[in-house]
């Protein structure tokens, strides 16, 4: 019985160890343009959840800065741009709501996780470092495993 339990655990471990994944790291502005003094993790989780929340996240953390370029702008913001938060209004991006349709993943679609970190300088200028992790769903990574991989930058 003990041997069966150990074998089962080993199999489970080997499955997760075999999960194929790739990571993609990007910055919204070059990191070299920011003399970083502060780093804040804005989001860690499923990529599909992030795309739904990106507007509120941006509104909460990013709007007060941006060098005044976005200050005081108001406009009729199409739904798409609305996801970027009120301060993104007036950027001149007009895209119809129809393009909001998220990709319709099949039952076997890959898992996608994302980690978003705000890196800012003393003046409030910032860049968003985003690490996208795409993993084969069969086998798959847990959220905790995905977070560890993304944090390590692997």
């Amino acid at each position, binding site marked *: 019985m003990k041997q069966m339990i150990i074998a089962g655990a080993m199999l489970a471990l080997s499955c997760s160890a075999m999960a194929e994944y790739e990571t*993609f790291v990007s910055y919204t502005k070059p990191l070299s343009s920011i003399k970083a003094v502060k780093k804040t993790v804005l989001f860690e989780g499923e990529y599909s959840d992030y*795309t739904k929340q990106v507007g509120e996240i941006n509104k909460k953390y990013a709007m007060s800065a941006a060098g005044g370029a976005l200050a005081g702008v108001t406009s009729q913001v199409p739904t798409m741009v609305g996801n970027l938060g009120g301060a993104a209004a007036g950027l*001149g991006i007009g895209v119809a709501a*129809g393009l909001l349709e998220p*990709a319709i993943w099949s039952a076997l*679609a890959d898992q996608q996780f994302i980690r978003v970190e705000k890196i800012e300088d003393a003046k409030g200028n910032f860049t968003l470092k985003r690490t996208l992790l*795409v993993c*084969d769903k069969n086998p798959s990574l847990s959220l905790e495993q995905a977070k560890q991989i993304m944090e390590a930058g692997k």
Partner: protein
Amino acid sequence: MNRKILLMATIVGASLIMGGCAAVGTIVEPDIQTSSKAHYSIAKHSEGYYTVVARPAVNGRVLSGFSYQSPKAAKRKRMVFESLFEAAARFTKKQGYTHFVLVNPEFNNLTGFPISDFENFIRYATLEDRHKNFDTISPYQQNSLISRHGDVQLMFMPVDKKVVDSGLVSTWKVSDFIKDNK
């Protein structure tokens, strides 16, 4: 009688063509040539974005599309996408902008798609060609990057400096795709 038939056929044909054009946007740039000597048209859509459409082709021969997963598909995708991005970049530059965003449903920078450099993009777009268990792109949804018939369409929008400087959105640099000064 023959003239009447010919006239009717012309009217019907023109209607069909115009109807088809309306469905795919209005051609605003009939001929953009890339450094690989490929020629593309750029269509503008009522929602404000543009598309570059291409049939995947090598040396002038149209390929059967990317409906299969294979390393060869990955290589073909790189060649076609490189050319498409260059066409989008050249059009963006012609419009007086230095950056653009992608708005394909699978790669929408405006809703948080983080990638905005070609090497990472092609790596992402060819995941399922390089790893047989992956299924990243659902190829047959409407407005997909790769249509059911194997056409590849890049949906993009030029954006001004405010968007780039905001730090909120990943934007693509025109200068990454245009090496000459044209």
